């Protein structure tokens, strides 16, 4: 597995994206990497599109991912998976949570939710892995574990042993630790490792 990488997290405010990126970062740090993560607070939080850049390696300088250089994109919502297309390349791996959250223009009937928008990834020969984080979360009995289930999927592509992530989840998530671990494991299994 690559010893340095760029992970782009994206989705909609309120989906637990920042916690997911934190858990991922702690996993990589425990595995011995230098990690930098950049996110934006304030106005951008209010139900808007949210993005976090995470970079790891021996030594990380810039906290921002260059266009065309995201190794992995973890998208928490279908439209958002396509919104950050300029960061992707044909070798990028995209993990898409198959949830739809209607943007305001769609919710008020002024626009339509673009159906089959993931074909935009296929057209550009970008591989994507659909994952239903919400279904996993429901199956473990705690709907607020969807984000950690998605970290589980992501973890299968990172140079970090499973037990390191379990330790990180135990140490950093204050409530419902068992449910979060279950969700993480189910997500990781879904990725096929």
């Amino acid at each position, binding site marked *: 597995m690559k010893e340095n990488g760029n992970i782009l997290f994206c989705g909609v405010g309120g989906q637990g994206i920042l916690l997911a990126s934190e858990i991922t970062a702690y996993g990589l740090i425990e595995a011995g990497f230098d990690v930098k*993560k*950049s996110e934006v607070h304030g106005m951008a939080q*209010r139900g*808007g599109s949210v993005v976090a850049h995470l970079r790891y390696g021996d030594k990380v300088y810039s906290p*921002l991912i260059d266009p065309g250089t995201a190794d992995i994109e973890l998208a928490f919502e279908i439209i958002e998976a396509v919104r950050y*297309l*300029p960061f992707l390349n044909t070798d990028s791996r995209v993990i898409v949570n198959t949830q739809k959250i209607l943007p*305001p223009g769609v919710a008020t009937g002024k626009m339509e939710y673009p159906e089959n928008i993931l074909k935009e990834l296929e057209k550009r020969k970008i591989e994507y892995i659909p994952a239903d984080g919400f279904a996993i979360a429901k199956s473990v009995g705690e709907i607020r574990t969807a984000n950690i289930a998605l970290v589980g999927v992501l973890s299968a592509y990172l140079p970090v042993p499973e037990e390191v992530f379990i330790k990180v989840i135990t140490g950093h998530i204050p409530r419902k630790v068992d449910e979060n671990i279950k969700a993480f494991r189910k997500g990781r299994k879904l990725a096929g490792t």
Partner: protein
Amino acid sequence: MIKKNNRNNNDNFWLSGNEAIALGASEAGVKVASGYPGTPSTEILENLATYKDVYSEWAPNEKVALEVAIGASFAGVRALATMKHVGVNVAADPLFTASYTGSRGGLVIITADDPEMHSSQNEQDNRNYAFAAKMPMLEPSDPSEAKEFLKKAFSISEEFGSPVLLRVTTRVSHVKGLVSTGNKEASSVKAGIVKDPGKLVMLPANARKQRVELEKRLKKLENFAETFSYNRIEWGDKKTGFITGGISYLYVKNAFPEASILKLGMTWPMPEKMIKSFADQVDELYIVEELDPFFELHIKAMGIDCKGKEVIPAIGELNQFIIKNAIDPIKNQTVFDSVELPPRPPNMCPGCPHRGIFYNLSKLDVFVAGDIGCYTLGFLPPLSAIDSCVCMGASIGVSHGMSKAMGEKGIGKMVAVIGDSTFIHSGITGLVNIVYNNGYSTVIILDNRTTAMTGHQPNPATGVTLQGDAAPALDFEKLCLAIGVKNVVKVNPHDIESTYKILKQEIDRPEPSVIIAQAPCVLLPEAKKDKKAPCTTDLKECTGCGACLKLGCPAIQWNPVTALDAEKLGLKKKKQKGYARIDELLCDGCGQCVTLCKFEAITKKEI
């Protein structure tokens, strides 16, 4: 294992720039810290409040915050003031004269700039303040440096007797990286009252003397900059040399790992000899900096040939990609274009009390002068109910200015909307002006019991301090009456109909009025505790008229249907194009939409 808040562990931990600055303040032995919330600076004081060895507070505005810090410095302790870039404009008055009085205990002012305007109304470059206020400025590149540079800023402040500016930007404040804990330091100054009128009483006779002292101090700081270890040269290939600082240094390092770099950790004053010597040894010199050509102008004034803004953009944030392409374009690289998608701008939350006010304002023929806060989002469609937004507190002055320009023709049309925290920050004087000068604007104080946009900081009207301790709560009604406003009315903004009547009545008055729209922000714990039943839609009653959609509430969703679907679903009208449905998971149960539905298709759910 790395723990977020394990401060006893003498080890690395992973912090944002702002968290690192709070740690640095504690390690530097800061005794008093004051600030006003503003992205991207807010988390500095929020974190500092958790350190028991530092007194910290939210001030009503940045000017007061800096004055508090100046006072603490006069008393001989280390003091910190924190604010966002535009906050320094508010604090500029004490800032410029603090240079004259100088500091006693170490005094550091943090300016958190926001290139790209992620959460700001402008992207001013506050390095210019260092030059204009004749004050040294340090600029870290990442969280680890942010902590170290803050500590160094305090020792420089005490060594030279000058306040020091520390400038961070969004990509330093909100970037997380590994930071190691360090030793606790102590001030070299003895705390206590020392009377020194010649230095502290800035009337002309004294100020003229201090003006001369200030220039001498700046000369000393220039010499210091030449050997200061935070200004460092990293020699590499001498064909291309870069002079850079702050976050731009990391972008240059990524884009041109082989090049020679002069990293200026101290932005002002600049080390002229070091710069000249570096420039002499490289074939081509580039100045890479975000926003203004600050380094570039001063370096060119030294008579040094260099390239800067002719290739590096002066607008927005930089990154390694922009820098690389500006200087040595990446060949054969194709980057996917973005695809057109429905935009997802930030929006007011479901159940937000502001929505009720803006819905009503959208029905009235008025000019709404807006202000800075979540409610600025009232500008967005479908509400489209904010007509101007300049800066903190401007709504009231702008509204009054328009009313004076319009004369009698403007009566019934002039409204200012301003949040509780913003009103206290800089709206009160504007209201005094309206009363004093016989204006007729209606000022609506959107009192949601918190400073919401920056993440729910308490303010003088909330009855709690930064630490969550009880405090006297400012009473808006009494304050406005004391100012001389005769018409002060309280409304519940969720009650659309009665609020409309009061708005109409107050706005039509040919004299000043204040409406206090009071309902807590839905994200506050007190509002969450008081959980209301969600609203629900009866599919068979919805005619698809779209009245509820005019609220722009994220919980109300339009579902388009075909004629066939309409029949199958048993919708009310055959030619109905769709129906509205409330997402009960998102709905907060505020009930604003219940009033709007004339067909009783929306009802409150029974718990």
